[in-house]
């Protein structure tokens, strides 16, 4: 039987790859990306057979986003792939040049997104960016409208890296969309009113955010999004400091490194404290697993029975097997990181919880998952941090270490060395005066009435009115 799933957009490209693989081996699977909460609700309404989600049911219920029906149907979480949330930004420096080298610590990110840091000139930001202050402009935050699994993941990170500001933020915004949150439950929705909302620009989907950042349409803004969208729209992505004080971007090796420290609770839902504080120097801290939500018969107290049709059970177990092994091969190439062996095995266990039969044991021999073979697959490697070449963040920030902080922060040096962000480099760097990406293009600036209108009126008068007046005078003269 065919199975249908819906939900997370975060896992969308991966799901496309798995569907294709599964379908070509005769496992008919159909998945639509409609957002995690939608997926969970449709799952609960039994209109789909499984859901893809990053938001847990508890957060969903806390935010009033539904979820009760899924509880009734019964569910288990099954991790399917590892991904990361990127931090994208659009900032210009004092000279009006586009900044594309931003390095941020985890704490600073947390404080920015809880509006503890509210201006780009904040010393906490300049401290990791060559010491030179960015313009004294308010920070505009970009986020997702409504409920989103990505939001949940990101704010879990924020909650851990800046707990104080986070608590204050949540308390401030209880009545403005975030909802009253029980302990440990993360918001899946951002405030749409109240004092903080003025500084939040909420977009309907990841694509709109990425486009806005990529096109530089919101000056002095920063937001979070799936990394693949950032790449697609050439949006500058921040380098994030990890526990080892290295700065990384969300490439597969960094995600994989980070998730080695992920704690899974008994129900397999993730506890990511370890990830955020992973001492591995390759770690990209905002990494997380994405989940499938599917029914089960035994082994969890949230189980409420399997599918009505045996065919569906067969299909989904086949699908999970495909994801666990062959499905992981391409993940690094499209912006994810493959599941480690233990979690791949968990997928088999999930199958067992659905069918009631003993789980299949995965080994390097029967599973193509690259992690079984000691790698991550093609496309996993991260480009080097552009600041490393120049001596590292520390050295840059320390004025004595080099011939001045200003120079390396210049756009040309960053663009020239950063391969990861090079795609955004070339045409963003030359933010000339006629470029409308510029927040205030020169021409409009000077084109006020005084300049433009005055001249135009004068010229018009001279060129058109004068001859007519002269002619009229001449005519009258002749007539008389």
């Amino acid at each position, binding site marked *: 039987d065919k199975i249908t799933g819906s939900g997370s957009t975060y896992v969308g490209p991966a799901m496309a790859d798995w569907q294709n693989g599964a379908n070509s081996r005769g496992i008919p699977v159909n998945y639509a990306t409609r957002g995690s909460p939608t997926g969970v609700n449709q799952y609960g309404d039994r209109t789909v057979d499984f859901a893809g989600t990053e938001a847990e049911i508890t957060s969903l219920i806390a935010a009033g986003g*539904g979820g009760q029906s899924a509880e009734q149907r019964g569910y288990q979480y099954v991790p399917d792939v590892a991904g990361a949330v990127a931090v994208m930004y659009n900032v210009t420096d004092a000279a009006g040049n586009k900044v594309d080298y931003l390095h941020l610590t985890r704490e600073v990110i947390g404080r920015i997104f809880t509006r503890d840091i509210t201006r780009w000139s904040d010393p906490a930001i300049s401290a990791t960016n060559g010491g030179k202050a960015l313009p004294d402009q308010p920070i505009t935050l970009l986020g997702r409208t409504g409920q989103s699994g990505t939001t949940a993941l990101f704010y879990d990170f924020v909650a851990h890296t800046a707990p104080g500001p986070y608590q204050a933020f949540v308390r401030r915004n209880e009545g403005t969309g975030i909802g009253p949150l029980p302990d440990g439950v993360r918001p899946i929705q951002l405030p*749409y009113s109240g004092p903080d909302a003025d500084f939040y620009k909420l977009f309907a989907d990841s694509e709109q955010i990425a486009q806005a950042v990529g096109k530089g349409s919101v000056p002095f803004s920063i937001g979070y999004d799936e990394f693949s969208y950032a790449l697609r729209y050439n949006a500058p992505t921040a380098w994030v400091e990890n526990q080892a004080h290295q700065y990384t971007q969300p490439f597969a090796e960094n995600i994989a490194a980070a998730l080695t420290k992920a704690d899974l609770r008994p129900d397999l839902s993730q506890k990511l404290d370890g990830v955020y504080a992973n001492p591995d120097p390759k770690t990209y801290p905002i990494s997380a697993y994405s989940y499938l939500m599917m029914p089960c018969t035994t082994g969890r107290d949230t189980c409420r029975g399997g599918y009505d049709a045996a065919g569906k059970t067969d299909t989904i177990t086949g699908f999970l097997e495909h994801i666990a092994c062959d499905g992981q091969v391409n993940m690094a190439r499209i912006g994810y990181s493959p599941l480690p062996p233990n979690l791949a095995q968990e997928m088999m266990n999930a199958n067992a919880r659905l069918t009631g039969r003993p789980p299949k044991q995965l080994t390097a021999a029967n599973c193509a998952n690259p992690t079984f073979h000691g790698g991550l697959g093609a496309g996993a490697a991260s480009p080097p941090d552009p600041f490393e070449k120049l001596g590292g963040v520390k050295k840059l920030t320390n004025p004595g270490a080099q011939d001045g902080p200003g120079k390396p922060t210049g756009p040309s040096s960053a663009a020239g060395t950063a391969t990861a962000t090079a795609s955004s480099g070339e045409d963003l760097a030359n933010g000339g005066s006629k470029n409308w990406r510029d927040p205030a293009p020169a021409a409009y600036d000077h084109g006020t009435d005084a300049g433009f209108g005055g001249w135009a009126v004068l010229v018009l008068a001279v060129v058109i009115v004068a001859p007519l007046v002269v002619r009229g005078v001449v005519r009258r003269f002749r007539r008389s």
Partner: protein
Amino acid sequence: MSVVLPRAVADVPSRADRVFRRVTTGAGLAMLAILVVIGFFLVYRSGPAFDASGFGFFTTVKFDAANGVLGVLGLLYGTVVVALIAICVAVPLSVLAALFITEYASGRLRGFLTGLVDLLAAIPSLLYGLWGFSFLGPQVVPVSAWLTHNFGWFPPFAHQDNTLFLNSMFIAGLIVSLMVLPITTSVIREVFTQTPPGEKEAALALGSTRWGMVKTVVLPFGRGGIIGGSMLGLGRALGETIAVSLLLPQVPQITTHVLQFGGATISGFIANNSGASGLALSGLMAAGLVLFGFTLATNFTASVIISRSRSGAGVDA
């Protein structure tokens, strides 16, 4: 002479006629029934939402099932603003285009343009949205910037610092205006073609220029049609979904700043929340019902205006 009274005339229909009458009446009543069922169901299912928020449903800006806050005002506001912008752009263009087709273009061109208008109407809303999102939107940004810079004192053109011009109700309105152009143009064109040729010739025979003729005959005659066509366009604009859902952030809010980022419409909001369940779904139903009522009202006003006006006879949009 005594007063004559009409006599009753009864025809005896044949069997074929009786069947004919039954079948067609059945079809008509089926139509009636479908709508009644839809209406009834919408009302029934939006009951919980109305119960939950009472009259506040109409006065609350937010739509947030999380806190049990259900309100349609913000959505409705966005819907109306986008539709109004669309109409403001589309109607003048439609009038000009309709004038061109009926009064200025000759033979072949007229047929071609009439066909083109139909073709425009057949282009899917999705494609307009796609185009608007990836092409037109960015092109419009400098226009918005210019408007803000020079006419910022005019509230709708004002703009807060640090926001973007993309994803604005203005852009959405422009895209929707392209979608309503065909319908308004064809209604207005239809009305214009009904202008009595006698009056047009009378004006011309008095030595009038073409514009004089248009001004004294065609436009006054077509006034009802122009208004009615605009209202029909408005009805269409209110219901536009997918393009708007691609373009707007769908945050219910009330702001006069139409050039800047922000805005939500009922239909776009429903489309973006296609997985809602429980109270949220009920809320969406209620919002849908409000939208339905709103389009109904505009459509009816439109048809009343069209049929009341002198140009209305025989015109059916």
